[in-house]
């Protein structure tokens, strides 16, 4: 495929997904897939992790919170990244859909961050003896939450205003500098929090019977949160297009 056809194909693809109507129609399928797949994986991971995985030889049963903590933490970081990307797309190409996606990612990502913070500090009590420590990883995660909250608050000022959208996206993009800080905080500063055990290049340092449900949990969390994001985005699309012909047509046909 030569350059020109690639770029024109890309453009066509971009436009197709970028138009609210076709997004709304096409995303239905993915919404269901993501939802089912994610829910199934999470369910499996949690039953395995909570009931069948062996207790940790150091931490006993308290380690089981890992099956919520790590998936949510990991998804939270990724979702902030995605929010930054779609915000940038909105700022550059003024594509409304990207903004709707950013808004949805913000809500879901904020929730994930909150859950991982709470589970982390609950886990901290038995392992480190304290709920909260001023540790680089924990603090930078807290800042991630604050960024999510800040963006969400700005969006909440006025839902249909272009200015507000612009500001929210701007801040989301600027806030992306926080991501490498979180990711590498465990390496740059010596912290209480443990450094990455999971990595694609190295051999896992974890027992396989703990590892597999964890991996399932992470994948499941990604898909399930993705489902929530798609759902939320569809809602935003519908709301902002409620006066347009295609929505009215859908309503008339009983598709909604």
């Amino acid at each position, binding site marked *: 495929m030569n350059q020109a056809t690639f770029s024109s194909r890309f453009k066509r693809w971009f436009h197709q997904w970028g138009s609210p109507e076709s997004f709304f129609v096409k995303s239905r399928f993915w919404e269901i897939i993501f939802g089912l797949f994610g829910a199934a994986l999470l369910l499996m991971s949690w039953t395995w992790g909570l009931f069948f995985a062996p207790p940790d030889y150091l931490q006993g049963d308290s380690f089981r919170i890992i099956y919520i903590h790590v998936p949510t933490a990991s998804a939270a970081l990724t979702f902030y990244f995605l929010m930054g990307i779609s915000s940038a797309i909105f700022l550059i190409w003024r594509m409304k859909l990207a903004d709707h996606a950013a808004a949805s990612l913000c809500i879901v990502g904020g929730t994930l961050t909150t859950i991982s913070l709470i589970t982390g500090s609950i886990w901290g009590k038995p392992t480190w003896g*304290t*709920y*909260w*420590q*001023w*540790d680089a990883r924990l*603090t930078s995660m*807290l*800042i991630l939450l*604050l960024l999510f*909250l*800040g963006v969400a*608050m*700005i969006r*909440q*000022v006025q839902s249909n205003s272009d200015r507000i959208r612009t500001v929210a996206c701007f801040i989301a993009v600027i806030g992306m500098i926080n991501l490498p800080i979180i990711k590498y905080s465990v390496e740059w500063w010596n912290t209480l929090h443990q450094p990455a055990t999971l990595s694609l290049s190295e051999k896992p340092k974890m027992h396989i019977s703990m590892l597999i449900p964890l991996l399932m949990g992470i994948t499941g969390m990604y898909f399930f949160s993705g489902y929530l994001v798609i759902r939320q985005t569809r809602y935003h699309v519908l709301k902002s297009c409620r006066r347009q012909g295609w929505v009215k047509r859908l309503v008339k046909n009983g598709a909604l």
Partner: protein
Amino acid sequence: MFKRLGNVLKREILLSSRQFGFTAQLFIFLVIGIVLFAMGFNQASDAIRESVPALLWFLILLATTLVASSWFRDDYDNGWLAQWVMCDIPLSLLILVKQFFAWIQVLVTLILFIPLSNIMLNIEYEKPLLAYASFAIGTAILVQITSVTAVLSLLIGRSSVLHSIVTLPLTIPVLIFGAEINRAALDASSNANVVWFLMAIAAFVWSIGPWTTATALRMSLE
């Protein structure tokens, strides 16, 4: 009359909710303050513990200043305060309502914030009630001071040198007493008598504050 004052209060509430949940913002602001403070310390947690009272009171000062500074300014600029002056409710009553609401806002924020800060800074009060009381009284005083100075700064065309000259001597004692009480609440050893002193100041400023603010406001609208 009371119904109308209630309506005045309603407008304040509406505005604060329109300005993006002011309390929530204030709350986050305070949390960020703590995060920043702790970040710099590189885990020298002893030093953090020592400076908790000062930290809290400093943050509270900033928070009340934030609430108060935008208060009169918008309504002064858009001429709403002239309507206040001209209406038949005594101006100082109207101002009292506004100040009261500001205080409530700060208080609500603090009620949410203090438990969290206890966890985050890892502190436990020996006498928690004393600490809470000191926050309530201290913010009450600060609200009065900042509202007088906010109006003063309108009067002098918002060059804030005078503003600051007025603020400094008024706020510093309150903050110092506040921090002292806080230390007493932490230790149980120190002496907490100064809380009576703070209460006396509060009673004093709330009895003359609204009237002073009203007078300054009338002058600024001449």
